[in-house]
């Protein structure tokens, strides 16, 4: 299967691989996918006191496109508010990485991971 240069770049040099403390009240964690389906993404975001995402980390079990999608969104998330983060669409991810149709689900999973991380963070913060 032919991968785009951007997918290969993220696959070879994934950005922001790692783990944040999931018990930190400023950290939101999203874990989506299932091993039997071939992809599991864990995405974590950390917000500062002004509500801006100052750090994002990921770990992904999945194909090159899944790794690239999650690596890319960690770059995009930094500096955004939670509301801006929730607006990231899978189509933008797929377009940026030039994902072929059979790999669109990887970008969908990345969008789901963002939503899950944002929801987790919001649930931790006082209303």
């Amino acid at each position, binding site marked *: 299967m032919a991968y785009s240069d951007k997918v290969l770049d993220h696959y070879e040099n994934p950005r922001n691989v790692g783990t944040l403390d999931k018990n930190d009240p400023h950290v939101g964690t999203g874990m989506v996918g299932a091993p039997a389906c071939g992809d599991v*993404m864990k995405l974590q975001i950390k917000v500062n006191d002004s509500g801006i995402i100052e750090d994002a980390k990921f770990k992904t079990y999945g194909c090159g496109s899944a790794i690239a999608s999650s690596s890319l969104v960690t770059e995009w998330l930094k500096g955004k508010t939670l509301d801006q983060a929730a607006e990231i669409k899978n189509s933008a991810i797929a377009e940026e990485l030039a994902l072929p149709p059979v790999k669109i689900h990887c970008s969908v999973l990345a969008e789901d991971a963002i939503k899950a991380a944002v929801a987790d963070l919001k649930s931790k913060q006082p209303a």
Partner: protein
Amino acid sequence: MTVKTPIYLDYSATTPVDPRVAEKMIPYITEHFGNPASRSHPFGWTAEEAVEEARDEVAKLVNADPREIVWTSGATESNNLAIKGAANFYSGTKGKHIITVQTEHKAVIDAVRDLERQGFTATYLAPEPNGLIDLEKFKAAIQPDTVLASVMFVNNEIGVIQDITAIGNICRENNIIFHVDAAQATGKVEIDLEKLPVDLMSFCAHKTYGPKGIGALYVRRKPRIRIEAQMHGGGHERGMRSGTLATHQIVGMGEAFRLARLEMKAENLKVRRLRDRLLAGLEEIDEVYVNGDMDHRVPHNLNISFNFVEGESLIMAVKDIAVSSGSACTSASLEPSYVLRALGRSDELAHSSIRFSIGRFTTEEDIDYTIALMKSKIGKLRELSPLWEMHLDGIDLSKVEWAAH
């Protein structure tokens, strides 16, 4: 260390033609181009002589009579000819039930499926978790109308060697025609058809350093086994397989099998040493699982699963070595190997498996490079893997409720 990448470790897919084989073939393309069926001039006689010399060599490797060897285009055709040919010939007298195994090559399984569409019934035996057949289960699958059994000698994915003698004896006792796909066996295990209770056996050249596009079917003479031709025409090969013989291909197969007969003992020792070195190196990685029995196995094959690493990213990571993967990445879906699934491996482990197959031209440097590459790439992918992290945290992944998508 200087090795030329990609390193070829896919000898079970195909082998290079040995230069000695290629050299012997060339004059039969240009100079001795005659049709071996031409009886009226020396062009034909020369070609026929070469064909018969090659037939002798194929027969010698497996201790058969040359008159028992029928040329085909390869093991797929041999399997089809044997299974459909024998099933159709004997169904009227013996019955319409066929026994085969879930881990057979598709050329066997799909030939049997085709017969099912024509009114035959079939049992696809599940192998044991080590890939071998339980003889008692084989016996239990026999029905009064069982006409044919087909069991491969050496499995293409996991390299396990079935007990052909024992299975053949059971077939003899029950008056069942026994076909064996030996495409992966020639030059790797000793085959003595004078002793083996086998009626039909499929061979091909290109897994044994011969050219692609040529194979043979062994058809036993004593007791005589009959098959219905699947290819009709000029009545070549005693009517069993019509079509002008591909002299140069046949010469190549003959020479490849002659070399295999002379060199297999020494070659297998060398290959085993390399395979054991590879296994020892890879077993230094945590959470690896060998697929298939290690004792009843050709030395050429190592099939191993790397847990907590996804199959497709694994294949991307190891592009410097040419190997086969347990996940057949077809365009739309990721299908795990049906062979590994039949052994009871989970989808995840089936996906993350790699078949390393070693051969005549593999070197120790190739193996050491491969070990170092696998260690580094598996390490990198596990760094990236949330499943590996959970495993290290002591979480039992089978107990996790995943948000399936």
